[in-house]
């Protein structure tokens, strides 16, 4: 009820804005991150090309999903981007429709892993990120996810909260390191609980880690590759771990809403977004790592991204369905063991 009310009021506000706009338009729902770059690289050139207007709605995934659900029968949004598991949740709510990949000229250029991550073309991957451990190479050595709990890191390590996108993948890798790779994550959560007094904090925002590292409050933390750029600029020796269990990460996908009013333009925008030109520009601006296999970037840029087929293939990703099916259980176990 409340969700509907909130979503409707937002939809009304957005609707009012749209009524005054050009006749041809496409409405998209995206993450709030790097919108200036997206406008310059993607939206404005696309608007010139199609002679239409791109109406952008931003917000965190929970808000955006709630809005999409509230307007399910009369969708305002034509196309949205979200994490693979949120896209699967959207599909289970009946918000999305399968994407006709024949209408995307750039589809075959994508890495195989991005082509159909949810099955039935319910979503198409457009970017990835790796998750591994950032650490102070002058103070500690990290060769395994289990090294997070070495003696030298007692009271000097941060771990992502289970509620973040980095949390479950990091727990999964910790599980692998201690010999249990079950998606239920019970063993790694118990392992974290055992060491919780040695962990400075369970962070919820990656920017928090940068501050704690800068202050030398912590010496290591699991982190998404998208924030690595900040560490290369700090005056301290940081390294990106390549643990023997491998790296983990996540994938973001594009979805098409069921009953989208501007389906043709939505397809055109998706195709443009996946093109080698746009994916290269987004990579060079360090906004998104490319899912298009034809993208070539300099070594320096590549070092700051999750780049190349080998890297992408080697990521130990938790399947979206397993994330959705286990999420409540993880939170409950985490709150019971770690949260108190």
């Amino acid at each position, binding site marked *: *009820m409340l969700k509907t009310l909130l979503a409707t009021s937002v939809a009304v506000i957005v609707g009012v804005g749209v009524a005054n706009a050009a006749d041809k338009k496409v409405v998209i729902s995206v993450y709030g991150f790097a919108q200036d770059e997206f406008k310059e690289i993607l939206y404005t050139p696309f608007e010139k090309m199609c002679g239409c207007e791109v109406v952008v709605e931003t917000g965190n995934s929970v808000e955006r999903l709630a809005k999409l659900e509230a307007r399910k029968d009369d969708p305002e949004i034509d196309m949205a981007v979200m994490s693979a598991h949120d896209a699967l949740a959207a599909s289970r709510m009946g918000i999305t429709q399968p994407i006709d990949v024949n209408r995307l000229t750039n589809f075959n250029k994508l890495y195989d892993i991005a082509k159909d991550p949810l099955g039935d073309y319910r979503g198409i991957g457009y970017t990835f990120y790796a998750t591994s451990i950032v650490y102070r190479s002058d103070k500690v050595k990290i060769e395994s996810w289990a090294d997070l709990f070495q003696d030298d890191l007692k009271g000097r390590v941060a771990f992502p909260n289970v509620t973040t996108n980095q949390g479950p993948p990091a727990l999964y890798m910790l599980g692998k390191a201690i010999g249990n790779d079950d998606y239920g994550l019970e063993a790694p959560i118990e392992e974290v609980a055992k060491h*919780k007094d040695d962990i400075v*904090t369970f962070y*919820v925002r990656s920017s928090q880690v940068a501050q704690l590292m800068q202050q030398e*409050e912590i010496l290591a933390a699991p982190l998404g590759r998208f924030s690595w750029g900040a560490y290369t600029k700090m005056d301290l020796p940081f390294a990106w771990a390549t643990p023997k269990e491998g790296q983990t990460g996540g994938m973001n996908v594009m979805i098409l809403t069921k009953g989208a009013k501007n389906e043709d333009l939505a397809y055109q925008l998706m195709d443009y977004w996946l093109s080698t030109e746009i994916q290269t520009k987004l990579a060079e601006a360090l906004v998104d790592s490319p899912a298009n296999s034809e993208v070539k970037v300099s070594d320096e840029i590549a070092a700051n991204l999750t780049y190349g087929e080998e890297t992408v293939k080697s990521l130990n990703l938790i399947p979206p369905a397993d994330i959705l099916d286990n999420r409540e259980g993880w939170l409950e176990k985490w709150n*019971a063991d770690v949260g108190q």
Partner: protein
Amino acid sequence: MFQNRAEALALALPAVLFASLVFLLPVGILLSEGFRGETGWTLSAYTSFFDSALNRTVFFRTLRLGALVTSISAVIGYATAYAIVSLPPTARGRMIGLVVLPLMISPVARTYAWIVILGRTGIVNEALVWIGLTDEPVRFLFSETAVTIGLLQLFMPLMIISLISALENMPRDAVSAARVLGANWFQVFWKVILPLTREGLVIGGTLVFTGSLTAYITPAVLGGSKVLMLETLLYQRVTVASDFASASIIAMILMIMSFSANMLLKRLATARRRR
């Protein structure tokens, strides 16, 4: 004042409509969410909320920290306020300005400053090591201590200001009279100052306690998920689990706690008056 009631009501109507539409109605909807069950109206969401050990821990921690912050604010607040009221007018104005100053800085900035101050390489730890009280830096961040310090700094000015205005309204010679009649300082405070300034204490106490319960940034930044409080738990329920029912229960509990604290403080004040 008005010719008839109708005229007065008509004047109040816009404000009443506005408040009902943008405040009472949404709050009503929000709170009703917690009583909505699968089959109809029920209290089961509240009982099951307290069945969870984590929720109980968070509830009692919020209550405990709120009470602690309010008590410390009251003790330090009385001393500070008394000292300020005793100053000559110009100096008093300046000191009040200094007390109010932190309120003009964003709580986000103030809270982040504590991360630097309380950190391993922060001024507090460096001082402790230099004095020789400890060999290794003490870990303050992400603990109840850090949250308490942050909340104290955030809300103590409200207590001091309330007490200053209460002390200013107290007859100036009441304290001297009590002293002349042989009361010691404790008796002066307990039997003269406290009864005469209880209104200020009730207002300050309510502001500090309610503020501590409902603060979000300070417990989120200085406590993190290791020191969950009701407000940070509420945020977690909404953003992670999309669980608006639990969120509305927490909102209701926070409101009840604030109202109860206010009533309790008022009761304490009037109880002393009756004696």
